């Protein structure tokens, strides 16, 4: 679709000369209540609209539908012409609404029948309309500015709809000639200006309005090219409902609209006071919208099958869709191939307002194609978003994506201990919200850039599975973990982090158990002090990932380094000793799959983390800095042969039975989650009511961590 098509700019020119004050001779009875009244009251004479009133209300209806369906980018410039030109609004988007036009029209008032007809003419308006079409709109301006070198791609086209009462066909020709001449003149002027653009294409739509009961003096004429720039068509229409029907057809043609009639709408009706029964009846409501909502019908040639002709506007067709119960709920994500704003044809009728209010209250309705036989096909949905109603087109054909391989069959599909709940929480913390246009932060980042930046910060250290982490399974670490990812910390935040660290120190002093994952391992798992060492290392990794953010982040790290259990020298010595242990440990447990390495040693674990995180280099640097870091990756390559070694080789010969039993136990342990009790058991004896001792409310490692 082209944004700068003819329908980008519409200039309405309405004749305000004395002859427009003439009555349309369509009589409307206002005095309707007489039958319930006491007899003998003489009803008032019916009223009749002037040609002017008819022209205004029909043009307003045209604008109402237009603004409902296209609230932006389709602009109207409203011009009234008598002895002078009254331009009621501009191309500015902020001027594009019916209230503003109504206010301006009220100020103009009806034509003055006593004005000198000699000096009044619709020509003034037509000239003004051409001048106005040359004026650049904000959208054209914006596009030209962004396109720079290719600014000539921005076209200037437009349409003039002139509502008048012409004298004859010759008079019509004179009006056309005038528009043509003005375009040529104005195009010359526009060529030399920045704020003006020459008109490349202009459609003139002349609507001749004459009172009912009179013969028309002007003949209808199909669209005709008057020059390469200007085409013109003439419609000769009686005032009143014929005019309304004509403009309704025109707005549909001009803006590619189509009509859908919603049928079978169940509606509780409270009838007038005389009939006080609450009954329910089915109603029809006709809606207009972009015709692409019918694209499937149009392409498949089903338009006639699906629809019937509209009741009141003769010329056009409407597609009938049936109201469908049960309704849909808002948390369902439908496969929707298009959503188009609607406008009810008869906006004030009770069925229309019932339907629109129902939708505006936030409910959605599925619509079904009426079919003579066969299964029902739901093809559309009506739903409102922020006070605007949309007709959604739902896909009703076979999907090319049916029967895909399940995600559990693909990469990572067999891992069972993902931190699903934690990531859910992460997603909630990273929800988006709209910011006002002017909101740019100090670094000139747009909100969406800030959002990406926040995601980067929040994921610097984020183990994906439960058995890869200790600290994220600990309730006690939560305050620090939540704060450290922030862009800026307050002194109070630092204090909270420090308190968290002191708390951990306290736990260590009391030798509280940690939720170290021992899934898959037999026996005790790592010793208590070893557990704490793993925990402290992980905590350091987390904080180090953020240490560059600010000086206060650094203070948190300083606090951890200061409070950690072992002074570095001692640690270093211990570590050397432990490395031997580690090796044994490793050989004992190897042969297992990579993701289960988490429990073996912290170094193994960190390495696993590093491998998974793409940002390998920075990770390595971070860890290298640590006095307690494992040796860099390249120094300790994980050998493939090592993997294939039979388990417990280092412990001497094992029987085939042991080998087999180990294998089975391993395989089985993978299939179920270990009992929490057995996980924290010592010599297969689990202490009961542990939680009574735990002042910190620390959570025993469990999938999902319900208490958090």
């Amino acid at each position, binding site marked *: 679709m082209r944004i700068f098509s003819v329908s980008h700019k519409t200039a309405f020119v309405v004749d305000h000369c004395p002859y427009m004050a003439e009555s349309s001779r369509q009589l409307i009875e*206002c005095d309707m209540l007489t039958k319930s009244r006491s007899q003998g009251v003489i009803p008032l004479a019916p009223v009749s609209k*002037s040609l002017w009133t008819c022209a205004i209300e029909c043009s307003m209806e045209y604008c109402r539908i237009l603004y409902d369906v296209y609230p932006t980018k389709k602009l109207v410039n409203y011009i009234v012409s008598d002895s002078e030109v009254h331009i009621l609004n501009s191309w500015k988007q902020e001027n594009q609404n019916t209230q503003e036009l109504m206010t301006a029209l009220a100020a103009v008032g009806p034509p003055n029948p006593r004005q000198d007809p000699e000096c009044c003419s619709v020509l003034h308006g037509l000239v003004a309309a051409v001048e106005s079409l040359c004026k650049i709109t904000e959208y054209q301006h914006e596009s030209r500015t962004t396109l720079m070198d290719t600014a000539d791609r921005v076209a200037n086209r437009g349409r003039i709809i002139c509502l008048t009462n012409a004298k004859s066909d010759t008079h019509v020709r004179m009006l056309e000639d005038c528009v043509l001449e003005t375009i040529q003149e104005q195009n010359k002027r526009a060529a030399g200006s920045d704020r003006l653009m020459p008109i490349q294409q202009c459609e003139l739509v002349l609507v001749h309005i004459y009172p009912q009961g009179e013969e028309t003096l002007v003949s209808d004429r199909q669209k005709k090219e008057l020059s390469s720039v200007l085409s013109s068509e003439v419609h000769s229409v009686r005032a009143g409902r014929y005019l309304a029907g004509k403009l309704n057809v025109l707005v549909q043609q001009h803006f590619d609209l189509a009509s859908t009639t919603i049928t079978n709408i169940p509606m509780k009706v409270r009838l007038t006071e005389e009939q006080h029964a609450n009954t329910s009846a089915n109603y029809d409501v006709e809606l207009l919208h972009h015709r692409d909502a019918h694209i499937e019908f149009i392409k498949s040639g089903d338009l006639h099958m699906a629809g019937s002709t509209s009741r009141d506007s003769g010329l056009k067709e409407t597609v009938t869709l049936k109201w469908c119960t049960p309704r849909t709920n808002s948390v369902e994500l439908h496969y929707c191939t298009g959503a188009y704003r609607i406008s009810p044809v*008869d906006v004030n009728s009770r069925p229309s307002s019932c339907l629109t209010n129902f939708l505006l209250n936030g409910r959605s309705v599925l619509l079904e194609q009426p079919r003579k036989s066969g299964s029902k096909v739901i093809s559309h949905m009506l739903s409102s*978003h922020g006070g*605007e109603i949309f007709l959604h087109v739902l896909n009703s*054909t076979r999907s090319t994506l049916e029967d895909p391989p399940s995600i559990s069959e693909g990469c990572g599909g067999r891992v069972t201990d993902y931190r699903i709940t934690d990531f859910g929480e992460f997603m909630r913390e990273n929800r988006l919200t709209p910011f006002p246009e002017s909101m740019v932060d100090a670094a000139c980042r747009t*909100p*969406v850039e800030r959002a990406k930046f926040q995601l980067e910060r929040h994921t610097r250290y984020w183990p994906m599975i439960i058995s890869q982490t200790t600290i994220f399974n600990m309730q006690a670490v939560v305050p620090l973990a939540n704060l450290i990812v922030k862009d800026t910390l307050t002194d109070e935040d630092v204090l909270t982090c420090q308190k968290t660290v002191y708390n951990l120190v306290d736990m260590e002093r009391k030798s509280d158990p940690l939720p170290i994952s021992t899934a898959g391992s037999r026996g005790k798992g790592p010793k208590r002090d070893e557990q704490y060492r793993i925990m402290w290392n992980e905590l350091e990794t987390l904080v180090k990932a953020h240490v560059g953010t600010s000086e206060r982040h650094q203070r948190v790290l300083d606090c951890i380094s200061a409070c950690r259990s072992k002074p570095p020298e001692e640690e270093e010595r211990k570590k050397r000793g432990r490395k031997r242990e580690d090796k044994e440990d490793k050989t004992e447990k190897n042969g297992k799959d990579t993701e289960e390495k988490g429990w073996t040693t912290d170094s193994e674990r960190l390495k696993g983390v590093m491998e998974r995180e793409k940002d390998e280099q920075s990770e390595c640097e971070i860890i290298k800095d640590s006095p307690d870091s494992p040796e860099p990756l390249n120094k300790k390559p994980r050998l493939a042969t090592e993997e294939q070694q039979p388990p417990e080789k280092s412990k001497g010969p094992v029987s085939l039975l042991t080998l087999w039993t180990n294998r089975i136990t391993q395989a089985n342990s993978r299939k179920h989650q270990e009992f929490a009790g057995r996980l924290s058991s010592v010599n297969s004896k689990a202490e009961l009511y542990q939680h009574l001792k735990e002042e910190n409310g620390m959570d025993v490692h469990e999938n999902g961590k319900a208490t958090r």
Partner: protein
Amino acid sequence: MPTVVLLDSSLSMTRPVSVEGSEEFQRKNLAVHGLTMLFEHMATNYRLEFTSLVAFSSLWELLVPFSRDYNTLQEALNNLEDYDKTCLEAALQGVSNVVQQEWGTSCPCQVVLVTDGALGIGRGSLRHSLQTVKQRVDDKKFPLPFPFPSKLYVMCIANAEELQATDSMDNLEQLINLNGGEGQIYTMEGPLCLKSVQSMFGKLIDQAYSPFHAVLRCGNLTSDVQVFPRPEPVTIDEEVDPIPKTVQTDLEIVGFIEIGDISSPPVLSRHLVLPIAVSKEGDEIGTGATDDTEEETSTNQMAGKSPNFCVLLHGSLKVEGMVALVQLGPDWFGMLYSQADSKKKSNLMMSLFDPGSEPLPWLGRMSQLGPASDAAENPYGEDDSKSPFPIQPKHKRSYAQNVTVWIKASGLQTDVQKILRNAKKLPEKTQTFYKELNRLRKAALAFGFWELLKSVAELLERECTLLPDSAHPDAAFQLSHAAQQLKLASSGDSKYAAFEQNITPMLTDFSGGGGADRI
């Protein structure tokens, strides 16, 4: 994007290819060889593609309906028989029907026409079809352009010189033009042999069947993925921006939104996001030749057991009922969500929005979406009871603002009756009475319908005379006050006919200490 292979099985396809070597090939053998290569490629790298096989001569026949079973397709290809003359138009019509029956008219399809370029003679030949293309009546229209979005690839078992010697090439080019330029003609280079047919089909595979690999990123969490079907380039406004936009291979998540807030948005296309394992050499597991199946399965198993971000994301999106907004390119976004195929199976799916800064009016400009934690006050509320979405438009739509439309007489009559109904219930209904009265007054002033104001004034005056003795004394005062004000407005005197001005209830001794508020 489903594929239809339309294979020429006319007699001319059995013409032998002149080669010096020992074996003698028919053109048909070369065609089958090329298609075998295509099917093999699809079976390994593009196995979710639905393909169907149609053979044609003067008639056409659907040999294999849309299927992912490439063995069946291959088998049908191997058992192909030879028929009479080439009649392309009927076959294209057949393709059109086959596709529409299966997928409707909105699903894009690829049509691979394999022919020797001998396009028939006389009636039913492509030349004849194209000559008469403009003289068709409605029900005998030429099948191109297809009613569904399509690409037509013509694979000629002939070299360009051969085709240019006759008008075949012109006719085929015309065919592509008829399809809106969507498609391409491939010819063989050099002598007709297995090697040149391979290279021709190789080009088609690169053009139309290369898998789309990307990296899905959420901050530092990443996963290598294949996006299927591959996203095709999109043009929004061919005049202002004729260069098609393509999805970049770096899919960056920008944040998360509740399903209820994104609210069934319209999308251009839907794609599966399948995590893939990339080995250290950069080769992808599972795409190589299948000669080493054992090793492949073991590496696949390994891949299944190492944690993958896609699986984590999918699980959390599903549990939380959320979607992830993902940036596809400059000013182009999409969403990731969990899509359940059945009770057991579900998948990570990506839908593409229209390119542009504001694809969904209820989310506003995409670039203005930022982290909720940056807002002064939590837009979701402390207990998740609120939402910043949908965004309210600046102006209400007509159906949400009680507009006045008098195009039908009934509209006007209803509005007058509302006033009279309230007039009878004065002074209880003073507020509604004046509200309705002012609504009518405003519309009448805007429409220049002063006659109506006079008429309603008269109605009110008459109403005043008809008041029963039991009526509240205030009623008479209000009615005559309202009538007088309407009359003044109908004079057009700017003092009384200002649009923004309202008629306010008359302050009377009965109205209870000025209780009648200004409206």
